[in-house]
C-alpha cells in the first residue's frame, strides 16, 4: 500500500509499504478515506522531534472505513465509517477512567524513552516518533488502530461529509479544549496566538463557550482574514506591538485568557531576536522558540489563564516565570484528550453550530503528500489546511 514516510529532515516520500495486520485483539484496520497534514507534523518535518526513524509513516488526523476487527472488538463492524482520535488510549488505566486519554499509561510501549526526556510518559500517538510509541500513522491507504473499542467514533449520519467530520480526530477538539480550559466567563476577552487551523478552531470555540471578544494574532493576512470571518478582531504582530495593542483593546487590563496555538517553532516579529532564538534552537541550546508563549504570558491580565495548545518538546530559554508567578497567572495545557470531546463536538457539527471544513484550502491525492508538506510549510498559495485522499 502507499504511505507517507518521514525520510529525514525536510524529506517526506510516499512509498510502498506492507499492509497493516492485527497485532492486538482490540485492534481494527481502517481503510483511510481522508487524512490531513497537521501543523504539528511540520515539527517532525523540520526535525525538531527526537526519536524519528527513516521510513516512519506519518499522520495522526485520519478517518475511514473499518475493514477488519480484532477478536475482542464488538462495538465496530466491517464497513463502519469512523474518525480516529490521535492519542491512543486503553480506556482502562487511571487517567483514561478520569477522561485524561492523552495520558493513557498503557499505550506507549516505549514509555521508557519518554520518561528519560519528560519524567513520565504520556499516551502513544499515531505517526509521532518512537518516544510516543512508534505507531505507524494514517497518511496511508490503511492503518492499524489499537484500542478500537475506545477511540474511534462511528459516523452514522451519511449527510455529513468526510471533510466535515475529519477534524474531530485532532484540531477541532484541540482548539476546543484550548478554549474550554480557560473557563470562559460572560464578558471575557480571549486572545489567540496563531491563526492556523487550531487557532481558527480556538477562536470559534471561544465564541461557542461564551466569550464576548476574541482577538486573533498572526502575521499572514489570509489567516487573520479567516479568523475575522469567524468574528475575531485581528492583530498582525509584524505591524503592531502585540502587548501594547492588547492593552489598548482591553482598556489597560489585558485579555482574560490567552491561548498559545503556535508551539515550538514560533516566529518573532523582530528579525534579530528571531535569528537569535533560531540559532540557539539550531545548536540545541534550547529546543523551542517560545516567542508566542512568552508574549501570551506577559500579555495576560492579572489572575488570567494561559492555555498552551501548541506543541512543545523540550526546554525553553527566558521563560517569564516572574510575570507568571507575581501576577497569579494560571497555566492550562496538555495534548488534547480527544476521546472526551468527539461525541459532543460531533453533535455541535450535526446541529450546525460549527462546520470545521472552513479551514480546508487544499485537497490533494495521497501521492502528492510531499507537495502538501512543502506548501503547508512555506505557506504557499495561502495554504491553511491540506486534506489528502488515498
Amino acid at each position, binding site marked *: 500500500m502507499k504511505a507517507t*514516510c518521514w525520510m529525514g529532515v525536510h524529506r517526506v516520500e510516499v512509498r510502498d509499504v506492507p499492509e497493516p495486520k492485527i497485532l492486538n485483539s482490540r485492534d481494527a484496520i481502517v481503510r483511510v478515506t481522508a487524512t490531513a497534514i497537521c501543523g504539528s507534523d511540520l515539527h517532525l518535518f523540520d526535525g525538531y522531534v527526537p526519536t524519528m*526513524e527513516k521510513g516512519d509513516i506519518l499522520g495522526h488526523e485520519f478517518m475511514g472505513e473499518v475493514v477488519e476487527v480484532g477478536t475482542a472488538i464488538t462495538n465496530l463492524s466491517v464497513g463502519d465509517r469512523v474518525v480516529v482520535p490521535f492519542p491512543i488510549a486503553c480506556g482502562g488505566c487511571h487517567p483514561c477512567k478520569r477522561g485524561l486519554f492523552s495520558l493513557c499509561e498503557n499505550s506507549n510501549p516505549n514509555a521508557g524513552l519518554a520518561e528519560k526526556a519528560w519524567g513520565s510518559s504520556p499516551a502513544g500517538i499515531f505517526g509521532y516518533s518512537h518516544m510516543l510509541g512508534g505507531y505507524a500513522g494514517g497518511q496511508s491507504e490503511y492503518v492499524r488502530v489499537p484500542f478500537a473499542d475506545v477511540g474511534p467514533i462511528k459516523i452514522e449520519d451519511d449527510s455529513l461529509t468526510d471533510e466535515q467530520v475529519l477534524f474531530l480526530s485532532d484540531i477541532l477538539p484541540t482548539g476546543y479544549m484550548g478554549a474550554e480550559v480557560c473557563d470562559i466567563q460572560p464578558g471575557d476577552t480571549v486572545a489567540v496566538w496563531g491563526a492556523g487551523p487550531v487557532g481558527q478552531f480556538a477562536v470559534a470555540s471561544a465564541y461557542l463557550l461564551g466569550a464576548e471578544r476574541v482577538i486573533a494574532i498572526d502575521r499572514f493576512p489570509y489567516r487573520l482574514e479567516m479568523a475575522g470571518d469567524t468574528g475575531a478582531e485581528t492583530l498582525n504582530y509584524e505591524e503592531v506591538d502585540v502587548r501594547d495593542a492588547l492593552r489598548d483593546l482591553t482598556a489597560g487590563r489585558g485579555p482574560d485568557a490567552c491561548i498559545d496555538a503556535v508551539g515550538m517553532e514560533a516566529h518573532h516579529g523582530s528579525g534579530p531576536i528571531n535569528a537569535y532564538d533560531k540559532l540557539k534552537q539550531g545548536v540545541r541550546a534550547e529546543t523551542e522558540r517560545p516567542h508566542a508563549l512568552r508574549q501570551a504570558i506577559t500579555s495576560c491580565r492579572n489572575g488570567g489563564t494561559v492555555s498552551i495548545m501548541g506543541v512543545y518538546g523540550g526546554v525553553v530559554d527566558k521563560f517569564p516565570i516572574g510575570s507568571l508567578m507575581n501576577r497569579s497567572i494560571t497555566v492550562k495545557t496538555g495534548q488534547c484528550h480527544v476521546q472526551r470531546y468527539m461525541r459532543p463536538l460531533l453533535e455541535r457539527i450535526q446541529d450546525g453550530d460549527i462546520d470545521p471544513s472552513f479551514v480546508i484550502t487544499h485537497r490533494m491525492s495521497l501521492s502528492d503528500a510531499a507537495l502538501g508538506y512543502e506548501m503547508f510549510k512555506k505557506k504557499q498559495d495561502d495554504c491553511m489546511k491540506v486534506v489528502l485522499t488515498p
Partner: protein
Amino acid sequence: MRNPPPPLERLLSRTTERRGSNTASGRRPNEDRLAKGLGWFSLGLGLPQVLLPSRVNRLIGIEDNSRNRAIMRAVGLRELGGGAGILDRPRPGGFLFARIAGDLMDLVLLRAAFRPSRKGRRRVAAATAAVAGVAVLDIVASARTSRSSGSTTADGGIRVRTAVTVNRPPDEVYGYWHDFENLPNFMAHLESVEVTGDGRSHWTAKAPAGTKVEWDAEIVEDIPDELIAWRSAEGAHVPNSGCVRFTSAPGDAGTEVTVELEYQPPGGAMGAAFSRLFGEEPLQQIKDDLRRFKQVIETGEVVRSDGTPEGTRTQRQFHQDEAQPVG
C-alpha cells in the same frame, strides 16, 4: 507504603544479610570511596597533562615533540571529562567503563611510544605498569558499581525491587499473579511455568544464545490478596526467589504491586557486570515486566506497536523498527 513490608529475610531461604547499609546513591561507602578516588585521580592527572604536557612527556619517557604534546593534551582532556563525570554522577557506571577504555588506549599509545634509549625505556615501562595497575582498579570499581542497580546480598546474589500501580482491586491483581502459569504472559524471559500442585511449579526461562534454564519452585508464603513469596527448589542452576506484595493504592485508586526478586547470577558479580554490558540489567528487566503486567491487567494483553511489535522492552527502545506495518 502504609503497610510495613513483611520481613523478607524471614521469607527467603538464603542470603539477605547486607554488607553494610546502602547509601542513598545505591552504592556502599567503600565502593563509593574507590570510584570517587578514581574520579579525583582523573582530575589530578588530567590537569598537568593539559597544562604542562612537555613535563609529563619527559616524566614518562616519551619524546617531547609537538605531536606528542597534542596527544598528551587530548588524553588530559579525556581524563578531566571522565573525572568530572565520575564525581558528578551518583552512579558513574558509564564513566568507569570509559576509564577502562581510556586505560586500554593509553597502553596502546605507550606501546607505540617505546623508545630505544635505556632511560626512556625504563620510564615508559614504569608508566605502562602504572596504567595497568590503575586499569585493574577501574575494572574492580566498575564491576562493583554495575552490581548496584539493585542491592547485593552477602553471598553475591543480586536483589532488585520495584513497584507499579495497577488500576484494579487487590483481589483481582493477586488472583492473576497467583496463577503462576500467567507469569510468562508478562515476564519476557519466562517461556513457561507449569503448576505441578501442592504449591510447586516447574519454570522454563530463555537464557543467552538460545539456551534454556529450567528449575522447580515452591511457594513459601501465600496471604490471599496481600502477598505471595516463592523460591527455587534445591539444585536450581540459578538459585532465585521472589516476593510480590499487593496493597490498596491511596484513595482506592487500584493496587500497588511491589516485587522483590533475588538470584545468584551465573559467574558471580563479574558475570553480572558482563551481562549488563549487553543490556541485561536486572532492575530494568523487572521494571519492563511490571509495565507489561500493568498492560495485561488493565488492557487484557501486552500492547504492541509497529516500532516495538513484541511489546515493551527497554533494550528494544534504542534500536526500533521503523514505524511501518510489520512485513
